[in-house]
Each structure stands twice: as structure tokens, then as C-alpha cells.
């Protein structure tokens, strides 16, 4: 078993494409769920809208990828309004039901035959990312050091991705320390109390839903450009649940919680993957127990176990404040 390369892969995962994608998706979810208490179970759809915004505009319509970005952002706002207008005046659970259903509708539409001409159906789309990589300022070559070495294309998308993460985190910090952020947190605690103090709760919830959705859409841009492919089943509900995992891991309502949560999530996945495969290759695991093809599933089981332990021993997440949780029971 090559411990060195397993560790090196795990370290690389800390700043890898998946970490960026989930960090952005969870940063958006943090605005909605962490600060405003909105149960958005459709974050995957906002990510899909970003991904398909670029992919469809470029491959199908033949437009520059900048148009795809604008279309993605506009569609994301529209989608948030569509979900929010009927549900945000109702009890919190209605939003949860509406978002999870709408998210599946988006995915199933994307993979349907009838829309296949625009979305590529269940095969998805490829060949739309060149416009983005044409902008790459890095000449061909290898960049980075130690475990963090990548070619010029990967370096370019990583740079863009992490700049986006940093900007979103900075913006989150700036607005959440303001009176606007305070209203949002108040709504999370008890929206009637906030209403009684003269705040238009509905408008604030809508703003949070739209903002968080837009950040999810940024994640979709990185997702599609980083992989240079979109495939509808990547945007299933599992994506949303992993995003919640990432958020709770890092600590909800903490600016950097989603970023640290995403890094830990993917490092742990990479580590378990490497260690399990190594152990099987070395013959330490009897064949009847697990084969290499099952490693993919088993590592998610282990992540589930780790998450359960975390929730038992550190329910507030990495950054959370345990005192805050203790208040819930009163």
C-alpha cells in the first residue's frame, strides 16, 4: 500500500474541483438554510441551471459562453422566484417539498427525450468549455508544487473557482454582519417576531432564496466548465444531500463553514477510497467482504458513519458554537 500517494491524493482533494463545486453550492445553501432557515432541498437544480445555462447556450445555440453565464444567472433568479412566490408565505415545510420536487423535475426534463435537442437528453452535452479555456492566461505546462501539481487547464479552472469561493465568502461576511443579516437570522429564529417588529419577512426570505440560488448557479458554472461535460444525473437529490452534509460538517451560519466542510468531505472521501483500495490490493480484505468495485459505495457508508459520530460528538459542526445548539431545546 502506497501511503505516500494516498495522502498526496487526499491533500490534493482538499483544493480540488469537487471541493470548489460543493463549497460554492454550500455557500449558497448557507445563505438560505444557515442564516435564513429556509429549507431548500433543491440546490442541485440551481447548480444544474448554471451547468446547462453554459452547456446549452454554447453547444445548441452556438453562442459565446459569456451569454451562457448571463442566461444561467437569469434562469436561476426566475427559478427561485417561481419556487418562492407560492411557498414562502406558507409554513417552512412547503418550501422543502416544493424545492425537492422542482429539483427532480428539472433533472428529469433535462434528461427527457422531448427536450433532448436542447439538453442532450440522458447523455448530456460536451464540447462547450473551449470558450472558457481560450481565456486561459496560463501557457501549456505544469503548475504548483508537491501534491498540488496540475496542468494549465486545471490550474485555470481552480484559480477561477477559488476566486469565486473567496469572493462569495467575503460577500457573505459583509452582508451577514449588517442589519440585513440580522433580520435574516431573526427570521430563522421566529419569523412572526420579526414581522411584529415591522420587517417584510416575505421579501427577506425571497432575497435569501434568490441569492443562495445564484451562488448555487456559480457552482454549476464551475461544475460544467471544470468537467467540460454535463450529465443530468449528476444533479440528482444526492447532490443536495451532500451539500447539506458539507454545510453541517463545517457549521451552518458560519462564513467559512461551507468551505472547510467541503474540503474535509472530499479529503475524507479520498482517504477512505485510497485506503480501502490499498487494503484490497494488499490482500488484507477477504474477497467475500469487499471487492474494488464496491469501494465507491463503502466509502460513502463510512462517510455516513463519520457524520453520525460528528453529529453525536460535535453537533455544531467544525466552526459552530455548542452553546447555540443548547438553546434549541428551551
Amino acid at each position, binding site marked *: 500500500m502506497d501511503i505516500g500517494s494516498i495522502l498526496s491524493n487526499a491533500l490534493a482533494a482538499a483544493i480540488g474541483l469537487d471541493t470548489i463545486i460543493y463549497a460554492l453550492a454550500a455557500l449558497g445553501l448557507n445563505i438560505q438554510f444557515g442564516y435564513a432557515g429556509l429549507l431548500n432541498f433543491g440546490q442541485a437544480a440551481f447548480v444544474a441551471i448554471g451547468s446547462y445555462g453554459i452547456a446549452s447556450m454554447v453547444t445548441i445555440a452556438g453562442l459565446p459562453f459569456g451569454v451562457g453565464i448571463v442566461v444561467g444567472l437569469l434562469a436561476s433568479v426566475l427559478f427561485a422566484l417561481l419556487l418562492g412566490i407560492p411557498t414562502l408565505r406558507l409554513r417552512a415545510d412547503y418550501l422543502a417539498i416544493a424545492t425537492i420536487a422542482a429539483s427532480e423535475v428539472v433533472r428529469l426534463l433535462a434528461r427527457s427525450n422531448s427536450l433532448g435537442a436542447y439538453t442532450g437528453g440522458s447523455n448530456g452535452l460536451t464540447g462547450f468549455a473551449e470558450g472558457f479555456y481560450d481565456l486561459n492566461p496560463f501557457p501549456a505546462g505544469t503548475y504548483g508544487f508537491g501534491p498540488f501539481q496540475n496542468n494549465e487547464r486545471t490550474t485555470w479552472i481552480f484559480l477561477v473557482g477559488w476566486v469565486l469561493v473567496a469572493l462569495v465568502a467575503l*460577500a457573505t461576511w*459583509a*452582508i451577514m*454582519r*449588517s*442589519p*440585513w*443579516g*440580522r*433580520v435574516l*437570522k*431573526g427570521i*430563522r*429564529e*421566529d419569523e*412572526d*417576531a*420579526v*414581522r*411584529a*417588529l*415591522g*420587517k*417584510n*419577512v416575505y421579501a427577506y426570505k425571497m*432575497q435569501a432564496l434568490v*441569492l443562495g440560488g445564484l451562488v448555487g448557479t456559480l457552482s454549476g458554472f464551475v461544475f460544467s466548465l471544470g468537467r467540460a461535460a454535463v450529465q443530468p444525473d449528476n444533479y440528482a437529490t444526492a447532490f443536495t444531500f451532500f451539500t447539506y452534509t458539507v454545510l453541517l460538517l463545517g457549521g451552518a451560519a458560519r462564513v467559512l463553514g461551507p468551505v472547510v466542510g467541503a474540503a474535509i468531505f472530499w479529503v475524507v472521501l479520498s482517504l477512505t477510497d485510497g485506503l480501502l483500495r490499498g487494503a484490497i490490493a494488499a490482500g488484507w480484505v477477504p474477497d467475500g467482504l469487499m471487492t474494488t468495485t464496491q469501494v465507491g459505495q463503502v466509502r460513502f457508508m463510512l462517510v455516513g458513519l463519520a457524520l453520525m459520530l460528528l453529529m453525536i460528538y460535535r453537533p455544531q459542526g467544525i466552526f459552530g458554537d455548542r*452553546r*447555540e445548539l443548547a*438553546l*434549541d431545546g*428551551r
Partner: protein
Amino acid sequence: MAGDTHAPAAAEGTRKQAATRALADVPRVPGAKKPDPVIVADGVVRRFGGLTAVSVEHVEIQRGAITALIGPNGAGKTTFFNLLTGFDRPDEGQWSFDGTDLARVPAHKVARRGMVRTFQLTKALSRLTVLQNMLLGASGQKGESLLRAAFAGIWRSQEKANTERALELLGRFKLDTKASDFAGSLSGGQRKLLEMARALMSDPQVVMLDEPMAGVNPALTQSLLGHVKDLREQGMTVLFVEHDMDMVRDISDWVVVMAQGKVVAEGPPDSVMADPAVIEAYLGGHHDVSLSDDSAAAELEKTVEAEVEAEIAADEHEKGRHQS
């Protein structure tokens, strides 16, 4: 800025006298006209399925006075509060606040117009600090708009002024040492205090308190009563729901009695508590009334006791029958 003016000690009680004088000639009948009403409600009806929770024909609340709203459990007091403040929609009815129509105006707009309320079940925002709770109460904050939120320069000075005001109010409510604690860590009584202080942050014209004294210890009750009287001295109108008759007698200028959704009696505390309609309302609801040493009230107490004893006897008779 009513909330900012501290009445000088010499003037203590002048507003009380003014309110008493203004209400002296008002007839003691349900729906009586007041000389200077701030709230006027007409034909307000709210039904829950077959149950008519509120059916108020006409009621006026005098400006600058402390009005108590009493009545047995389930009389519709909280529902009436919810209707007036936009937290519930009526099936029928109109009401105005300060001369402008207020029916079917959403809750946050009601609050912005100067009518704020507290809740029977206290709503402290647990995972916000006491100070943040207070700041949330301030109105007209520039930084509460998303477009300006990110630019602290725009709202910082206003925030500072609001913080000073919040700390001053917290001081009055003896919560200043708790300013940086989570509101969720406060005791039940302290939460009541916080909710009241928070409501005052917006300098309201009318404060509506739903059972502000429930669950508060007697020592704290005295200070809460003092605060409520203070509000009147600062020119605010107070409408509050309360079950403790001693308290009602102590602080209110006028009492409105509700039973089964209707206003059944009105008047100054003493006359209301002697009103047969009120006694009937409470007995009809089989409600245990806390009464004070007034002779008419004592009589009522006797009647209640007799009633209760009769009931207990009947119950035991029942039980005996079931056991045998």
C-alpha cells in the same frame, strides 16, 4: 419621539390623571364612544370553522390611556389582537388606527405605522444576543436593505445610535448586564422583559401586550407594572391582556371585557368588576377569577366558591357512581 422623553419626576402621574379625566364621562356600556380614540373597530368577525372566535360590534381604545382587555380563557382576546395587528385575517369587519384604515394591512406594515405587539407565548430570538434582539426592533434602518448591507459606511453611524438607545432601554429593564448573552439563555420573565423592551425600540404609538405578566415572579411583576405605567407617562397608548385582576385594577384606566368573542362590558376597573355581565361571563365560562378586596368582587368570589363547591360535589357524586 415619544419613547425618548423621560417624564420629569414632578409630572409623574399627570398622564394618568389626564386619562382618568378623559374617560370619566364615558358611559360604561360595551362599544362606548371615547373622546379621543386611537383604535376604532367595527363589526370585526373571525370564525374558525363553526366557532365564532371574535365578533366585536364596536370598540374604541382611548389614546394615551392604559386599557386592559380581560375575559375567560378562549374569549377571543388573542385572536382579536392577531386581527388588529395583521397576524390574522378577519371574515368581516373594519378598523382604523389613528384615523387611517388598517383592516387587512399586513403585520409588518401595522408595526411600521406605530402599533407594535408582544405575544402571549414569548418570542425571544434565541440564537441572537439580547442586544441583537433589541437592534432588530429599531425602525427605518438603512442597513436592512440588501443593496446597502455590504457597505458598512452607510449604516454604521445609525447602528451606533441604535445601540446606545438599545443599551439605555435595556438598562431601564434591568437587562443591560445580559446584553451580550444569547436571548435563549434568559429566564422566562427576562424574556418577557426583553420582548417588551424590543417592541419599544421603534418608538411605537400603541403598544399591545398579550399577558405580559404571565409567568413572571411577583418582584419582577412590580417592575413590569412600573414600566407599563411609564409607557403611559411617555404618551403611549397601552392595550394589554391580563388575567390577574389585582394587576388590572392597579394599572388600567379602562377595562374591556370579552366573552365568547363579544365585548360584554366596559368601564373603569372598579365598576367593571362589579358588573353582573362580567360575573356572568366568568361564571359562564366556569373560570376561576383572582379577585381583590372589593365588596362586589368579594361577593363574586363567594358565588364562584359556591359554584365550584357545587361542582366538586357533583364531580364526586359522579365518581362515586362510576366506582360503584
